[in-house]
């Protein structure tokens, strides 16, 4: 961390004047240095050809530092993954901060470092950005927005219109881990656990899958907020097809399972990071799974269900004991239950 003559962020750091410049030039620009990074201008300029993907997300997680990561890497991985889910190779990211007065420079720096490493790992450049500071009590330490531009993979044909009955539904890893890691440090709910968020960039894995399986991959989705259940419902709604899910195939680690039992949560509705879902044609499903298991973040992948003609727009789960139930979309936030 550079030597600075301030320890906490104040409103002045968002004023656009000397302090804003001091903050940015103290090391932020250096840290994220790359050939295109915002040349002290209002935007970045670069050359890109062909079909492009464009995505954005704002990150508002509390707490900002959580077991296994912090908001910084989340913000990079999130948009990188959203681009990957479109079948794109993520290229350039924008990075915009809303800082709350009183955030310490040390915390900010730690977040910046995570951003740097996450961007490097994903192979993307941060090329433009923005910093705002809000009064104490008008923010929550730090909010981050990233937007990203990527190039669509030449073999990609990702579209819900391509999904058809018989397609297999695959998750790339253990579900609900991230959401439970966050929950474990929430006021009033805290519990001790070694569960850590599995936030990760998925673009390299996705690229290799697209290289190999191309148009046999019909859909990618990352089941972040709302969890796997929400994505399944969205797919069913958009395709007007039914979905059957086999509960016993859904990978959940034991500790996450324990936490869900304790708090009365359903892992299908808990948020994920570093996990994606794919809908692939039945022909390649097993090969796809085998390949995915050899790739980064794919070891625990599993085929959890399939697309069916029956019960259109409905997701039906076959429980471990052989019963069936409809999986609906989440109504409101999942809250811990007493009953």
């Amino acid at each position, binding site marked *: 961390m550079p030597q600075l003559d301030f320890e906490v962020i104040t409103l002045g750091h968002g004023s656009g004047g000397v302090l804003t410049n001091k903050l940015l030039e103290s090391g932020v620009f250096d840290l994220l240095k790359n050939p295109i990074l915002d040349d002290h201008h209002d935007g970045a300029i670069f050359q890109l050809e062909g079909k492009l993907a464009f995505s954005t997300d704002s990150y508002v997680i509390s707490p900002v530092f959580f077991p296994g990561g912090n908001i910084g890497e989340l913000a990079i991985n999130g948009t990188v993954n959203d681009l990957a889910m479109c079948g794109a190779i993520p290229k350039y990211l924008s990075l915009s901060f809303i800082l709350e007065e009183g955030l310490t420079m040390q915390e900010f720096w730690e977040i910046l470092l995570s951003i740097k490493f996450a961007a490097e790992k994903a192979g993307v450049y941060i090329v433009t950005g923005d910093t705002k500071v809000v009064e104490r009590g008008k923010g929550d330490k730090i909010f981050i927005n990233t937007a990203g531009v990527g190039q669509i993979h030449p073999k990609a044909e990702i579209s819900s219109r391509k999904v058809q009955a018989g397609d297999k539904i695959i998750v790339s890893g253990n579900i609900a881990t991230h959401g439970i890691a966050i929950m474990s440090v929430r006021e009033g709910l805290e519990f001790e656990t070694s569960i850590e968020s599995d936030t990760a960039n998925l673009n390299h894995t996705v690229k290799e899958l697209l290289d190999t399986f191309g148009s046999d991959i019909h859909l990618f989705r990352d089941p972040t907020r709302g969890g796997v259940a929400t994505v399944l419902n969205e797919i069913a709604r958009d395709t007007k097809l039914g979905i059957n899910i086999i509960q016993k195939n859904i990978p959940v680690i034991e500790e996450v399972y324990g936490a869900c039992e304790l708090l009365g949560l359903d892992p299908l509705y808990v948020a994920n990071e570093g996990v994606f879902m794919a809908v692939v044609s039945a022909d390649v499903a097993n090969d796809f799974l085998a390949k995915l298991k050899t790739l980064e973040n794919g070891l625990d992948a599993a085929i959890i269900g399939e697309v069916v003609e029956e019960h259109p727009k409905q997701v039906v789960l076959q429980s471990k004991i052989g019963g069936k139930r*409809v999986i609906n979309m989440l109504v409101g936030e999942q809250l811990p239950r007493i009953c």
Partner: protein
Amino acid sequence: MCLAIPGKIKSIEYQYDGLVRMAKVVFGGITKEASLEMVPDAQVGDYVLVHVGVAISKVDEEEAQKTFKYLEEIGEIDELVEHAQIDKNSIDEGISKFL
């Protein structure tokens, strides 16, 4: 009502000048604090049923086994396999009733 789940006592400490026993209870790899005030004889290693942060009962291993011997006890275990086959169909019917 009344979501309560069984966990294993990992450690016990005293609070309120020794008046209150609080335990760390392990649930499938996660650990949560629970009051032992309702289960004065619970010890480290015991399983307790925890509801909203309070252990409301010990879990009795021997009694638990009875559930798995019940069918045998009522003397009908032998004929089960064939019935299980039949029921597969009836299960699917059951489902279509709901969908």
